[in-house]
């Protein structure tokens, strides 16, 4: 039995910050706190941009190249996994990898539509001046609908995670908090972890972009 580091801290921080900010975006709009909603939204922009960049330059398990597989093999994995015939242990499994991509797209659309949205009460998203009022109105509606889609995807995500936790006895939640997993043996390939300096620089750039959009 070996304790192996799977997730680097930037990826873990990203994950939980994403959770907190999605909840914050929902809570604020539910209570008509549009200014705070916008802040949550722009925080999410910084997070998502960071994560996409990290998918190219980050640690092994964070990279798209590590977890994007052929869709067919992802489906095959899904079927086998449900029958408990395979157990992927390091990083995102092939089916989960695609879920990450879909989530990023849906969150990305939520952010872009939010930037172009308005609330008819004098607030409008940072980029809404670039489209007509009618388009902005339409995107505001889609922003609301896309949120329902996001909730549905989050549900699927939770169902999958707890399938691992409860059925496969692999506590993914704990791994996403600590970064470590207990494995029987050393992974066949070496996991490389990117430097903290790189993570901080990439995040500062992402946050800069988001802030640039926020401050007119």
């Amino acid at each position, binding site marked *: 039995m070996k304790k192996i580091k799977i997730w680097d801290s930037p990826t873990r921080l990203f994950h939980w910050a994403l959770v907190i900010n999605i909840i914050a975006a929902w809570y604020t709009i539910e209570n008509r706190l549009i200014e705070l909603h916008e802040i949550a939204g722009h925080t999410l922009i910084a997070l998502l941009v960071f994560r996409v960049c990290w998918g190219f330059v980050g640690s092994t398990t964070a990279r798209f190249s590590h977890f994007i597989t052929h869709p067919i093999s992802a489906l095959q994995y899904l079927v086998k996994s449900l029958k408990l015939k395979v157990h992927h242990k390091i990083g995102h499994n092939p089916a989960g990898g695609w879920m990450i991509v879909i989530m990023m797209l849906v969150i990305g659309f939520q952010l872009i539509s939010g930037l172009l949205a308005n609330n008819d*009460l004098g607030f409008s998203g940072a980029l809404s001046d670039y489209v007509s009022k009618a388009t902005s*109105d339409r995107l505001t509606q889609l922003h609301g609908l896309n949120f329902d889609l996001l909730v549905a995807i989050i549900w699927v995500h939770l169902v999958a995670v707890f399938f691992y936790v409860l*059925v496969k006895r692999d506590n993914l939640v704990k791994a996403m908090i600590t970064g470590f997993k207990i494995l029987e043996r050393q992974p066949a390939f070496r996991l490389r972890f990117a430097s903290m300096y790189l993570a901080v620089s990439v995040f500062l750039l992402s946050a800069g972009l988001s802030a640039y959009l926020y401050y007119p």
Partner: protein
Amino acid sequence: MTKTISPKGYFLVVTGLSIVWLVLYIQAQPSWTQNIKETLGLSAPLQATDDSFYNSRIDPIFEKYCTACHDGNKDKGQLRLDSYRHFTFSGRSEADLRVADNNLLLERMRLPETDRLAMPPFGRERHTESELALIELWLSKGGSGELTEDDFPEAPAKAKVIKFADIDWQKIEKDRAAYAKTLKDIQQRYPHVLHYQARTSNLVVIESFSITQQLTDKTVSEFMPLAPVLTELHFANSLVSDNSIDKFLTMPNLTVINLSGTQITSSRLVELLDLENLQTVIVSKSILTDEIRAAFKQRDVRLVSVNKG
């Protein structure tokens, strides 16, 4: 933590939870359940009756201040106020808006206009106190879609709204085009004599007031290019004579002609009755005979006699 759950058991629980979630979601969409009930014939169509107090008095208030944001186009807060049916379905909060106590709609309309939650939001045209009182009155009797005006004797009478038909300026412009140039030319020759009957009309009125002593049968000939659009001729005290009668008869839109104090005689006056649209003829009393009066009476054209000459 040692006993593992079987995939089957796990997905049974997941399915159960999904169904609960789905049911809650559908319950939050009262329009769906109502539509289903109506399709299955379990419920009569939910709508206000034509003569209901709602339709005559409440709906116009919502129409005026609320539907810009609360209709099928844009259901802000998931609330539609464009019909009684949708009013009943309420909004995101799922509050029953038909109940007068703690009514969310009333509460938000009562807020000071600058309040963050005020409805209509700050900056929009705001309802009056009496409109609010009317909604309160309606809700105090159950927010019904069936009660009629008779059930609300205490409601102040409905203000009469006079509605003007929208003016189609393009059409007027088009109708005028055919004679616009001719009119302009003649207007230049005779300033302040010819003008359109109204801003919305293509028909022309001639007021000879400023040229009475120069206005002869010959002058009438000069107006003839406009014959199809002439509608009123005010030729009182001019030098016009019976020779112009034939010209008047070529003016299909002529409605009013004032020939008092002119050289017109009784001999051809009744011929004017051939004009389809003629309504009023004004002449000197001295030329009128009983026969003429009778003829005008029969055609129902007003004959006005003026004491002069």
